[in-house]
């Protein structure tokens, strides 16, 4: 739709600007708060201009951490989160693309029920099955380990479903042409399906990375050693214990630190991401 009336232009921009402000203003406040000293909030008025404690706050949080609150240095937690998010994203993509490949291109008994089973788990969030999963992970001795953090959430019905839908749009003749060209199933997968799925993989990687990064409940349940804490848990610990002390500057610094990596991932993969969501190369 192309409209070209000044009033409508004004209106659309107004709505856009309001929307952007609504999203950006809290982030801005958080950043400002993270640059002030601990006493600057006593008055109850939140400052709107940056303070001079930027390096002190961030340095303290990254290097030392708030050990009284049970939060190890943020650098460690950031590394933990990064490792977990990357493993989850890679794992989810690898597993789901292979399952989708099996479901779409092979005829085996119970193929359709298998698909529907996977599809139905879409309706079951982690929280629903968290107790049995905890029991299994505990019995396997995976508490307080990276495998315990990653493996229980590594299967993805959503991603499997998306890859399936994508594979279904690849013309069947492509597979037949490859067969005539002497490419077996695995070769077809590697030489043709994988490259064609490139943009989908990139888009899913971002989504799954952020999903992994934002894991909260699960890491909280299975990690008791600070060595395995993730950054989202760290913020919670910082906030709940510091409640009395009103050290909001540190909490906000933690929030900003935790929010940064997903933003960076999006910025750097944005081109592929947008492409993957709106078009497929065909």
């Amino acid at each position, binding site marked *: 739709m192309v409209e070209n009336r000044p009033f409508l232009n004004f209106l659309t921009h107004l709505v856009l600007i309001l929307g952007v402000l609504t999203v950006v203003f809290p982030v801005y406040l958080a950043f400002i708060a993270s640059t002030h000293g601990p006493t600057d909030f006593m008055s109850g008025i939140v400052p709107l201009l940056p303070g001079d404690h930027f390096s002190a706050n961030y340095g303290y949080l990254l290097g030392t951490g708030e050990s009284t609150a049970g939060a190890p240095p943020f650098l460690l937690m950031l590394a933990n989160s990064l490792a977990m998010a990357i493993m989850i994203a890679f794992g989810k993509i690898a597993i789901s693309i292979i399952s989708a490949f099996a479901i779409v291109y092979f005829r085996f008994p119970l193929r359709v029920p298998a698909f529907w089973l996977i599809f139905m788990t879409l309706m079951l969030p982690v929280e629903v099955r968290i107790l049995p999963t905890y029991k299994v992970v505990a019995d396997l001795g995976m508490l307080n380990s990276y495998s315990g953090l990653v493996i229980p959430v590594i299967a993805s019905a959503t991603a499997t479903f998306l890859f399936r839908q994508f594979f279904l749009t690849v013309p069947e*003749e492509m597979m037949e*042409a*490859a067969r*005539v*060209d*002497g*490419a077996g199933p695995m*070769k077809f997968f590697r030489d043709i399906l994988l490259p*064609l799925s490139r943009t989908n993989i990139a888009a899913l990687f971002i989504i799954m990375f952020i999903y992994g990064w934002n894991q909260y409940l699960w890491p909280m349940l299975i990690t008791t050693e600070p060595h395995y804490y993730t950054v989202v848990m760290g913020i919670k610990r910082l906030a709940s214990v510091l409640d009395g002390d009103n050290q909001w500057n540190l909490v906000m610094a933690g929030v900003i630190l935790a929010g940064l990596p997903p933003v960076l991932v999006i910025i750097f993969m944005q081109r592929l991401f947008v492409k993957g969501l709106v078009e497929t190369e065909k």
Partner: protein
Amino acid sequence: MASIDVENVGKVYSGGVRAVTDIKLNIADGEFIVLVGPSGCGKSTLLRMVAGLETISEGEVKIGSRVVNNVEPADRDIAMVFQNYALYPHMTVYNNLAYGLKNRGTPKAEIDARVAEAARMLEITQYLERKPRALSGGQRQRVAMGRAIVRKPAAFLFDEPLSNLDAKLRVSMRGEIKRLQRRLGTTSIYVTHDQLEAMTLADRLVVLNGGQIEQIGAPLEVYHAPASTFVASFIGSPAMNLVKGELHGDKLAIGPAMVALNGFAPTSGAVTVGVRAEDLRIARDDEEALPFHLEYTEELGAQRLIHGTVGDQQITAAVSPEIALSPEMRVAVDTKRLHFFSIDTGKRLPGNVPAEAKLAPVEPVI
């Protein structure tokens, strides 16, 4: 190079859908066979069984002297050109052509040479580094052909390769395919539902209907002696006129009119009479003819098609545009060029030998 023998082949799809019944077809080495028939008659199914993309439910397919029923497509030594080309969109034209050779472990130098040769033959050399999406439909079609040629297979299989092109390009590509096939001498099976394409390309036509072979023959044989009303109405444009008639001894009654057959009547009683539009002409006053009521005309340039009725039956005649027309006319028919079919089965009646059409033999050019 190889012959292809299709022996009593049938196909039943899962779910019990029967697509093809008892096909028997022997294709000589280097022959260009066209499978033609209306949509859904099983052409693609038959071709795909030869290619190995569909399992063979009944019968046997032999390529050369080898039964290939259980051989993978890649090992059948065939190449296929698909209707939508099925080029690999993420590969350059070069890699599209080279992919099949690479998979067979062909040495790099030989791949280069073969791709270059095929590209030159098809005049796509300047596009070798492009991706298919940056090519026009016609260029993509050439790439698809190239992918078949580089492999130097025993047989080419085409499934309606030209139907996504515009009319003009279709004609020129048609010529090109024929020329290439002659030059390479590769046995080919070509599927189309376009009877003109079928006529122009084929060494032999195979007309399919409802999963069965209706007729096999050289294009002109099929044109001049269609084996059934189905073939008669399918091959040739405009379609052959088919009208109800009655044979009384040596006379043929069509509606109110009577035509003397001059000693040529294969049977007696009711028959379906076939007559090509070009075998009808405006009658002179003194000859026996059918009363023709003109309804409308179509101009083809060299010819004019006049559509109308004889009695209550539709008839189309092709006449010279110079002849003056009037609403009520009389058309005469060359009785030696009449075709008679059984009313019940639609099959051509025995003894109904077509008149010698004066055809000069065509020497294969090139």
